[in-house]
């Protein structure tokens, strides 16, 4: 493979990506693109990120050999990249710090963001508290119900959480409202988008700030074993933790890349969030990407037990990696994810987020399939504290999905 340099200058990954936004936002998009190009040349900017990542977030995160899980699976060695140990409990803080520092450089004092599970909202509110920025978070009314604790966290951190009741009242609709808010307040507000979705340059910026996950994994693994893992596995909603894990491995063709979507109640039912497996290309929230949609181009609601995967699209770069066959995409049902949630808790003493449980569930299958002597790394993108109530309700027989 020749050097991988995407996105191109116009923000496209092959046919995917681009910047499909109302003209009102174009000035801000151009300004953000220029500001990002400028900080790329600025070692002080990265020194600041590195300082906060180390002393505030707690990086680097461990690469942990999950021996009990490996023995249970009876196949390949399974390693966990412990993004769950980050401050605020998930990988989302990596991007929030980078973008908030960028906003400060751009002279913007107000931050708007969307959140699904609340992890990106909490990460954003946290960084805004740290950097003294005004923070407004849009969150679907359904998600507010499912993730009440995270709502309280954001409020404690000084953010204003706005309930979104339009559409399916989940992440997709929160993005709509955050975009509308940005359209109306674009001059003094930065939209701190939380995934590798949205108009260019967001998919690139978020990927770059998240790629610390893959970079560390590569170094840690190589330092220990003088080789690279045979496969990496990550869950995918919009796809930010997966892109952060995959990106440093794209040119390492011997490393297989696996993305795991939410199959909800099953991909043969209408209740899933498997955009790459069951969707087709279309335009939403600023990008051309794989989308769950009907034949008339109306966006369909996604369903997953995990609020963070409950999004009907998947970032343009994943759409491209699927198209060229560089990454493989599979799906895991609610039930399989819930089983993995309990299994990892019991076997390793690590309670994973329901999102990350999808990656764990797939890793078990993959470990058996590729067999011993192989090594695979799972991106454990977040911790499960936020999900404990919902899982308890579900195990008692209630249906939370």
């Amino acid at each position: 493979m020749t050097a991988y340099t995407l996105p191109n200058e116009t923000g496209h990954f092959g046919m995917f990506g681009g910047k499909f936004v109302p003209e009102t936002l174009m000035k801000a998009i151009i300004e953000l693109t220029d500001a990002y190009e400028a900080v790329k040349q600025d070692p002080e900017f990265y020194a600041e990120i590195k300082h906060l990542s180390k002393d505030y977030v707690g990086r680097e995160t461990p690469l942990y050999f999950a021996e009990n899980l490996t023995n249970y699976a009876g196949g390949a060695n399974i390693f966990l990249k412990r993004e769950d140990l980050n401050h605020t409990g998930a990988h989302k803080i990596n991007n929030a710090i980078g973008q908030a520092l960028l906003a400060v450089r751009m002279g913007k004092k107000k931050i708007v963001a969307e959140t699904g599970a609340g992890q990106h909202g909490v990460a954003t509110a946290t960084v805004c508290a740290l950097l003294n920025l005004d923070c407004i978070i849009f969150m679907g009314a359904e998600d507010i119900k499912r993730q009440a604790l995270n709502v309280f966290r954001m409020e404690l951190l000084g953010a204003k959480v706005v309930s979104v009741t339009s559409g399916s009242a989940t992440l997709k609709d929160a993005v709509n409202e955050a975009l509308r808010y940005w359209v109306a307040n674009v001059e003094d507000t930065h939209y701190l988008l939380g995934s590798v979705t949205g108009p260019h340059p967001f998919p690139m910026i978020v990927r770059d700030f998240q790629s610390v996950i893959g970079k560390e994994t590569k170094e840690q693994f190589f330092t220990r074993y003088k080789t690279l893992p045979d496969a990496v596995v990550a869950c995918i909603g919009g796809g930010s933790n997966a892109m952060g894990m995959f990106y440093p491995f794209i040119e390492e063709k011997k490393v297989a890349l696996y993305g795991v979507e939410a199959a909800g109640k099953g991909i043969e039912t209408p209740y899933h969030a498997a955009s790459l497996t069951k969707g087709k290309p279309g335009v939403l929230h600023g990008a051309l990407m794989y989308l769950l949609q009907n034949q008339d181009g109306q966006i369909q609601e996604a369903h997953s037990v995990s609020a963070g995967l409950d999004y009907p699209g998947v970032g343009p770069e994943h759409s491209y990696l699927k198209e060229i066959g560089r990454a493989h995409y599979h799906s895991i049902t609610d039930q399989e994810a819930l089983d993995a949630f309990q299994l990892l808790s019991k076997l390793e003493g690590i309670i994973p987020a329901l999102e990350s449980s999808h990656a764990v569930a797939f890793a078990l299958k993959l470990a058996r399939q590729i067999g011993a002597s192989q090594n695979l790394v799972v991106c454990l993108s977040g911790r499960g504290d936020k999900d404990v109530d919902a899982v308890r309700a579900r195990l008692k027989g209630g249906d939370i999905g």
Partner: protein
Amino acid sequence: MNRIEQTFQLLKEHDTKAIVPYIMAGDGGLDCLTERLEMLEKFGAAAIEVGVPFSDPVADGPTIQAAGIRALNNGTTLKEIVAELTKARRTIKIPLIIMTYLNPVYAYGISSFVEDIQKAGVDGCIIPDMPVEEEEMIAPLLEAAGTELIRLVTLTTPLDRVKQIAAKGRGFLYTVTVKGITGTRNEFDKELLSFLQAVKEVSPIPVLAGFGISNHEQMQTITKYCDGVVIGSKIVDLLAENNFAELADLMSIFKLKSNLI
């Protein structure tokens, strides 16, 4: 000369301004679309923007969002809208302009869409989530079909960019008059009038102002600096209330009669 150019030519000859109402196709059922278009023409519309409902209309405020949901709940599809406009064209003489987000067009198939709306007698097309940077996927096809791609500029568009967009412009230049989404407003941004004036100066094609316009006073003030107004949310509300008397009154301001066209 196409129908949009003819219309602005006539308006100029009669020294009057354009009033372009927006209607959400399928709100109230697709069956009533043609009769409503006829009514708007009778009330003095210079052209009509026909909105296509979309599940995720990020540039629209609550009124048009709600109208879109009602239309989708009625089962409205772009295919049926195009079919209905083909029928409407038999009686409607003024320009018809489709306003749609990109995804319904993408799902329809871009070349089929361009071909079908041209056959239907649609004169122009507005795609609010497609800035000029991304228009290559459809602009050349529309150009070849003689269907005008209406470009937008907004208060946040720098003047040199306004010039670039206006230079590409076809039909008219749609100037978004608020910093924000669609919806009626009581006050306009102070910079608006000077911005409109600047846009008018650099634009080789007629300039229409839209977003947030809902009464005669606003229309009088704004049209001092441009060639007409687009009215969306207010009209959608009046149509939903079947308040045709107020609608006729709202549109009476430039005393444009369709027999002019």
